[in-house]
């Protein structure tokens, strides 16, 4: 029986879809069987981030309405084949076309086959959110170190609890170490103070993410990218491995300088 994890945020544009694509790909790279489900009905996105937009025939709505079999709608990844599949969101119809009960039945079926089922939730707290959380065992909340995103994350944590999804884990996305250093961006510990939930990972802001999205290839497979490393770390943590959080704070120069001043340097 696989795990069903919803990836959510409240606020839009903080990187839910990018996170879903990268964690899914990262888990597949670690040998897991993964299914990604785009639950953002009417605003399909995960397909383009994964680079699979040209292969879509059926979508989530076709499956829940019984117009095709589940297997027919699952799109195989370019790199990982049937170890990483995507169930795309329907693009055209109204957003309450799918019910939470249908989502629950769908995720139950998927977890029979896959080790991880990752649900990419839409922004907001309405019908789409309820659909996305309906079948999930646990939740990952994505935020960025800005006031509006953290506020919405707090709200979402409350709503997840109301939906009986306790102990969500946090991913802090788009951290800019130089801004944190000069005190112009909230640090990981600042956000930890405020939200007081488990931190699953910290992802540095990385221009290469835009490049990788342009190409439709999740950055997690790029060995040179820092953001890719951050996603690889998170994927390993999801498998229960203890991986320390990436150190984004200390600049090497500064560290050396401090040691020099405190008389430690040789």
């Amino acid at each position, binding site marked *: 029986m696989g795990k069903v994890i919803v990836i959510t945020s409240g606020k839009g544009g903080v990187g839910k879809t990018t996170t879903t694509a990268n964690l899914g790909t990262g888990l597949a790279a670690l040998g897991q069987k993964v299914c990604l489900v785009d639950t953002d009905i009417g605003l399909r996105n995960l397909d383009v981030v994964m680079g699979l937009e040209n292969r879509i025939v059926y979508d989530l709505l076709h499956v829940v309405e019984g117009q095709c079999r589940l297997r027919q709608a699952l799109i195989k990844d370019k790199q990982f084949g049937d170890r990483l599949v995507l169930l795309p969101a329907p693009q055209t119809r109204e957003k309450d076309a799918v019910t939470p009960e249908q989502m629950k039945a769908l995720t139950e079926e998927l977890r029979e086959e896959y080790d991880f089922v990752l649900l990419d939730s839409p922004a907001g707290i309405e019908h789409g959110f309820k659909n996305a959380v309906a079948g999930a065992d646990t939740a990952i909340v994505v935020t960025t170190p800005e006031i509006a995103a953290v506020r919405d994350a707090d709200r979402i944590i409350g709503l997840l609890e109301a939906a009986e999804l306790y102990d969500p884990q946090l991913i802090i996305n788009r951290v800019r170490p130089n801004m944190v250093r000069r005190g*112009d961006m909230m640090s990981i510990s*600042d956000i930890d103070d405020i939200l007081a939930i488990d931190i699953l990972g910290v992802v540095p802001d990385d221009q290469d993410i835009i490049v990788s999205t342009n190409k439709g290839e999740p950055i997690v497979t790029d060995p040179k990218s820092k953001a890719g490393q951050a996603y690889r770390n998170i994927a390993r943590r999801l498998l229960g491995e203890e991986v320390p959080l990436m150190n984004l704070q200390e600049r090497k120069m500064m560290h050396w300088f401090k040691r020099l001043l405190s008389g430690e340097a040789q």
Partner: protein
Amino acid sequence: MFEFLSKLFGGFEGSKSRAKERLRLVLVHDRASLSPGLVEALKEELIQVITKYLEIDEEGLEVNFDKGDDSVALIANIPVKSVKRSAR
């Protein structure tokens, strides 16, 4: 010397402390208004604790959040009827 240098090299407070302060405050508002059940639950438990020591007018009990410009206070007005003999 070290203090001076660490100040020079980024030890001073930037705009993030403003963000954190504003966020804290806005979350107290959000969290208080998020669940209408919260105040009720708080009231119930307050009554349970206080009635161990005091006899109070449960009907007259009021619990509110008082929202000022830069602070939020929990204001409880609890009319006491009498002190229980066993509590003295």
